[in-house]
């Protein structure tokens, strides 16, 4: 494995978005990984609709919360095609599900994986390279005040409450870290990203790891 890897360098990660006051992080993380696998496979990077997942994934609760694994299960089972963000804009509130004709453009998935890798972060690096960016659920209570640097302490793994995606890792320095894309806008953290120490399941980053396959 390379000592340092970031899918952003391959041009397959969309820009950091802002969920506003909508508790839809679960949808941002799932749409983020689908955008990336779509870009890896079809060589086209496009922003897909988060609002479609928020409005239509009936097993979740829209802007009042949801689960990335639940959303992936719904996308996989229904074979729903995610449309472009430009066709179904983010509204920061739950709305009525809009349907699109089968002829319209859309990205559907053929499968997904979801695992607990809590004592296998080395394996996670390999999966990141093989599968593309990974959606993870973390305990982000201490992220309220984060400005930069590598989170190593005061981040428990007890209460998962926020979904994000891992786009890369860096093991070249004294503290190896994951490169994690958030959905709180580019003004938060390091241009919208946060760094998490690799190796001790900091923030519970390896407790629930999922990926989508096209």
């Amino acid at each position: 494995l390379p000592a340092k890897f970031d899918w952003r360098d391959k041009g397959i990660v969309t820009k950091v978005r802002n969920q506003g006051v909508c508790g839809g992080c679960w949808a941002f993380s799932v749409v983020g990984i689908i955008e990336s696998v779509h870009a890896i496979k079809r060589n086209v990077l496009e922003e897909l609709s988060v609002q479609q997942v928020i409005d239509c994934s009936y097993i979740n609760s829209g802007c009042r919360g949801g689960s990335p694994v639940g959303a992936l299960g719904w996308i996989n089972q229904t074979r729903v095609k995610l449309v472009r963000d430009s066709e179904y804009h983010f509204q920061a509130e739950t709305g009525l599900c809009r349907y699109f004709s089968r002829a319209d453009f859309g990205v559907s998935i053929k499968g997904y994986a979801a695992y607990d890798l809590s004592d296998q972060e080395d394996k996670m690096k390999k999966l990141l390279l093989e599968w593309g960016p990974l959606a993870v659920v973390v305990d982000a209570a201490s992220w309220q005040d984060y400005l930069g640097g590598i989170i190593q302490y005061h981040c428990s793994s007890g209460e998962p409450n926020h979904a994000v995606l891992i786009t890369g890792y860096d093991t070249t320095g004294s503290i190896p870290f994951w490169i994690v894309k958030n959905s709180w806008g580019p003004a938060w953290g390091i241009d919208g990203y946060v760094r998490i120490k690799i190796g001790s399941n900091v923030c519970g980053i390896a407790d629930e790891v999922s990926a989508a396959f096209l």
Partner: protein
Amino acid sequence: RSSQQEEKEEAAKWESILRIRRLNSLSNGDNTTAFYGMNQFSHLFPEEFRAIYLQSKSSKVPKFTPEVRVEEIDKP
């Protein structure tokens, strides 16, 4: 905004300052570790922040075993 709302946000900011001081003091001057400060969420109490932004639910997922093949997990 009402003055009541402004007072509440001011109180939340003071609480944020105290929390940030505590978080930064625990880094022991280590320059690689995370640093904390005022940002777009500093006007919120932790419980408000949690209620708005931390709304992901976790799911029970199996332990990863290298033997599992990707094709096998394409089942509902």
